[in-house]
């Protein structure tokens, strides 16, 4: 694996103006993602995980600290990141007036790719995303899991070297979730992308990523960085090893400590 960092956050802080004062959401977030890595962010709910992704995507600028994105050799920082990463937000945000196919090609369309070519590329992936036969359906006719897969397809088709996934399997039941994780591992091996995954599931973070960043409660700081020593390709069975259990326990310790569960 090359060690060239694709994304580097250095001491990022973010505060929003609120009522009388300011709401400090991120206090000190530093992280690095190298080419080909999948990195997870895990933390208590409401701690600012989505905000980290919004900052990376360029939808928000940090109050202090810096974000360096070098997906294609050139480094872009403030005000230049929009459109350079593929971002799958926490909500699917499918456009209700577009069909599955229409939603999937949105990223290509924005880039000016011809509609015919964009459609062909989406159609070629429908099967992989479990959407074959649904190209012409409107989103309101789809189940939650299918809607997420459409949002996922839209994200992958945007065709950026860095992919941000905000709890992509959050709304799924345990079984479907496990299936999706296995599928993602497969897909990731195939497309060779770099990614940041937000999750609140420790097992998911360990199973899918090279490294896990554990965040504190709001305002978020990086509490712990865990390199996951499991070999690739990963498989669900690895979750049964004692090594895995020990990693999981150490992360849960930090999370529970944050939430005050151990002191209760």
């Amino acid at each position, binding site marked *: 694996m090359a060690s060239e960092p694709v994304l580097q956050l250095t001491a990022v802080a973010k505060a929003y103006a609120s009522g009388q004062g300011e709401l400090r959401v991120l206090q000190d977030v530093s992280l690095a993602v190298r080419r080909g890595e999948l990195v997870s962010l895990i933390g208590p709910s409401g701690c600012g995980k989505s905000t980290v992704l919004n900052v990376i995507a360029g939808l928000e600028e940090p109050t202090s600290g810096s974000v360096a994105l070098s997906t294609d050799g050139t480094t872009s920082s403030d005000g230049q990141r929009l459109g350079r990463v593929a971002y799958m937000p926490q909500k699917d945000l499918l456009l209700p007036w577009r069909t599955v196919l229409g939603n999937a090609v949105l990223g290509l369309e924005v880039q000016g790719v011809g509609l015919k070519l964009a459609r062909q590329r989406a159609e070629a992936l429908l099967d992989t995303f479990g959407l074959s036969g649904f190209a012409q359906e409107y989103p309101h006719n*789809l189940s939650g899991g299918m809607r997420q897969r459409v949002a996922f397809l839209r994200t992958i088709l945007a065709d950026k070297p860095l992919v941000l996934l905000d709890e992509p399997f959050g709304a799924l039941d345990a079984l479907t979730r496990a299936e999706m994780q296995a599928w993602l591992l497969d897909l990731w091996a195939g497309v060779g992308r770099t990614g940041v995954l937000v999750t609140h599931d420790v097992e998911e973070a360990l199973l899918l990523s090279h490294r896990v960043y554990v965040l504190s409660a709001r305002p978020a700081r990086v509490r712990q960085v865990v390199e996951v020593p499991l070999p690739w390709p990963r498989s669900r069975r690895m979750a049964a090893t004692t090594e895995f259990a020990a990693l999981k326990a150490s992360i849960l310790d930090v999370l529970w400590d944050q939430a005050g569960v151990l002191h209760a």
Partner: protein
Amino acid sequence: MLKSAWDQPGATEVAQATPAAPGRWRAAIWQWLAPLLLLAALVGLWELLVRVFQTPRWLLPPPSAIGHALAANSALLARHALVTTQEVAAGFAVALATGVGLALAIAYWRVAARAVYPLVIASQTIPIIAIAPLLLVWVGYDLRPKVIVVALISFFPIVVNMADGLRAVDPEMVNMLRSLGASRWQVFRKVQVPGSLPYLFSGIKIAAAASVIGAVIGEWVGASAGLGYLMVQAAPRFQTSLVFAAVLVLSALGIALFLLVAGAERLALRWHHSAKRAKALDLNP
């Protein structure tokens, strides 16, 4: 409920959006038949009462006499209806253009929202019937004052609904497009325009009904042609059947305009109607 396998999306995952076909047909037929039956009953009662009490024709003609007047004066009515239709169409077009323009200004330009919106609302408190005669003095005796009255009456629902629609667009959807690298213009075209169309069509439907009334008011205060003019001419001569015939033509004009808009809506917003149907089925399975 059984979840279908992830790589084999089964039909169970799609909401079953079509109820039994015969049931739907019966519902559709009833939807049209019920009001027609009621109307027929009321007309029959009217005919009966007028005959029983021998009401004079100049006071209240029976429906049959109105039918006669309609047939006997069809050329006359058509000529005047054409004039009114022109006024409605022109006024409606003006209302649509200014309404959408103002809505865009209100939604995207803070100064306009502060300055224009209150005036738009205030404009609706001005009694149109009072300024219609003034328009004659200012603009002239031709089509123009009528067009202005129609536009004044029908631009309001268009502005208010369209502005609401533009402001109701989910900001997270806008952000999703921005993150894909969309320009402001692309965001506008791909999210804000389609998202506000259902609101715009609601406004247009209200405006369509109001615009016919506007044309009649405009003709009422001073005109040389049009169905409103015809009524003003016929009433003092006790040609009451002709007045009623003109009213019938006017209301047919209003209904035709409404159906035209509703048809355009159906074509433009297929997704919206199928979403509403899916929701309705969810609520009463």
